[in-house]
């Protein structure tokens, strides 16, 4: 077995790129779930972001505008979910699945004219002396801005939930909406804001797929990335820092197994592909054996204020 053709520098660089879309989607979904809402429509919002981002980037020539539009479009789509589940009190699981279907259908409709087109992609960020560092420069400091933005976002979400009053309110709403309501917090409003944020993040993740990672528009191109993001949130037991670990693990295993194959290593492909999912199950078993599972107590429950 000759693994010398795998360059660890390029490998880690690839892992960072490969993990970014699911990291963005997962951190958004985590905030939504911490507010007590289960939105299974991540896949639909991601692909909407992918197509809108792609279309806007092509029409304006500005990938940055593409990302902004993607976030906005997916967030608006998620508001329809918010309206249905928070105002009309529809079932969250069914509505979320519906959102995925809507997103997939809508995206292929919007995307038809853009098939086979090429988009301007994000330039690699030049971090001056950092990018010129011998090994680390290529590995960590020569990515596009979205990679760093996703990391900053994770840190920001972590700090927001841990240190700010607004973060505390959001968590209170997720743990016990009745208690939060009794204290005078606007449960529905907080949840709508969380859903909007989650949609925007999923949209960014989708746009990263179509604008940077692939980069092109193909119908159904998210191919399950949204579901992986949902799995990561559970894997992470609803903690921002663990979402980061989870996303890099998922991205890492995918890229690593492809690289191992390309280098001719005899690895059981099927086992490697399944390993992140196996690990999620193990984590869940470990969590439940310990007794506390970290899930927000009001997750997925409808809230109806009684006057």
């Amino acid at each position, binding site marked *: 077995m000759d693994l010398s053709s795998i360059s660890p520098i390029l490998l880690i660089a690839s892992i960072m790129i490969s993990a970014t879309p699911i990291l963005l989607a997962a951190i958004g979904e985590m905030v939504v779930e911490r507010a007590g809402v289960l939105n299974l429509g991540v896949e639909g919002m991601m692909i909407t972001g992918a197509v809108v981002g792609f279309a806007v980037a092509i029409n304006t020539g500005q990938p940055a505008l593409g990302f902004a539009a993607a976030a906005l479009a997916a967030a608006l789509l998620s508001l329809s979910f918010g309206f249905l589940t928070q105002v009309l009190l529809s079932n969250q699981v069914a509505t979320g699945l519906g959102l995925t279907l809507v997103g997939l259908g809508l995206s292929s409709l919007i995307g038809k004219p853009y098939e086979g087109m090429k988009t301007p992609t994000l330039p690699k960020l030049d971090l001056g002396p950092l990018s010129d560092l011998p090994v680390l420069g290529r590995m960590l400091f020569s990515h596009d801005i979205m990679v760093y933005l996703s990391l900053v976002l994770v840190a920001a979400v972590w700090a927001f939930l841990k240190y700010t009053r607004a973060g505390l309110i959001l968590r209170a709403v997720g743990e016990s909406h009745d208690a939060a309501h009794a204290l005078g917090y606007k449960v529905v409003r907080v949840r709508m804001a969380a859903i909007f944020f989650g949609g925007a993040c999923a949209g960014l993740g989708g746009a990263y797929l179509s604008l940077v990672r692939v980069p092109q528009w*193909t119908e159904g191109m998210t191919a399950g990335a949204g579901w992986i993001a949902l799995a990561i949130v559970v894997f992470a037991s609803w903690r921002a820092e663990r979402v980061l670990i989870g996303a890099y693990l998922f991205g890492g295993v995918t890229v690593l197994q492809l690289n191992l*194959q*390309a280098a001719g290593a005899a690895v059981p492909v099927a086992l490697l592909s399944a390993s992140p999912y196996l690990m999620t199950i193990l984590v869940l078993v470990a969590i439940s054996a310990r007794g506390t599972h970290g899930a927000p107590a009001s997750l997925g429950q409808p809230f109806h204020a009684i006057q």
Partner: protein
Amino acid sequence: MLRRTLLATAAAAAMATTAFGAEHAEKTKVGFIYVGPIGDGGWTYEHNKGRLAVEEEFGDAVETVYQESVPEGADAERAITQMALSGADLIFTTSFGYMDPTIAVAEKFPDVKFEHATGYKRADNVSTYSARFYEGRAIQGHIAGKMTETNKIGYIASFPIPEVIRGINSAYLHAKKVNPDVEFSIVWAYTWFDPAKEADAARALIENGADVILQHTDSTAPQAAAQEAGGIITFGQASDMSEFAPLPRVSSIIDDWAPYYIARTRAVMDGTWESTDTWDGIGPGMVGIGEISDAVPEDVKAEALAMKDAIASGEYHPFTGPINKQDGSVWLAEGEVADDGTLLGMDFYVEGLTGEIPN
């Protein structure tokens, strides 16, 4: 009886495309089950072109329905059953993984005709059809072997099934013939369609030194990844993918299902349909070779076209001995030509390929 009608109505309503089958009993209804979205730009895109050709040929006399992105496996059986319930007279199931579901549904609907692509199980109302893609792979291998500078050719494979293995062997044999130093890196993606993963696979191969990428997955993502990396050549798969010409895409294998779909639909209409086994190649036109771009040197292009003609006329078979299996045992003696049975069930690499076929 009432429940049956109800089921049929529900199934028709659930179909992604509009179905007016019940009122237009005189129309021949042709259904298609697709493994990916039509917009994949590759495999499913070409099957859908075949469907449109059927519509154009017969106009109002036919009605076509299709369902996209049907997963291979148990769910396929549900999708095919729904299509049969909705009154389809002829159903094309267009991926290898639909083989057992197709046979299972066909047993329940003896009056409906089924056509399964790339499989080997037949029944009185189930035909199989496939194209000899390996003929196109031979030409790709030749161009790849001539053009590689790193002598490393990357191959994105989907699933370890005979069709894919045939393609790898054929490409390798012909690359090796013109370039004894050539090496193949094969990545099994375990998917027909996942643009992100296909792009990652292409990137992994390129980072490992490959400068030619062959793909047996359905989307154009590897083309885009190769284009971004620069200095890489690729081949269109299933569809021309000419939007990536002249570089990285230097040629392509094009599946042309239209004549077959038209012929089979006509057979159903005039009642002459029989269960058959069709396996056509470049000669009858089921496999097309996309235009070889100017990035390929003139002499290589001429050789490739000569090989295409020789294969089309039957003068040359891509699997002509001497060929040994990977373990060194003799498969084909000097001048011997592979029989279709072995090719259809091919589960071994030829000599020189490294790695094992996963199972």
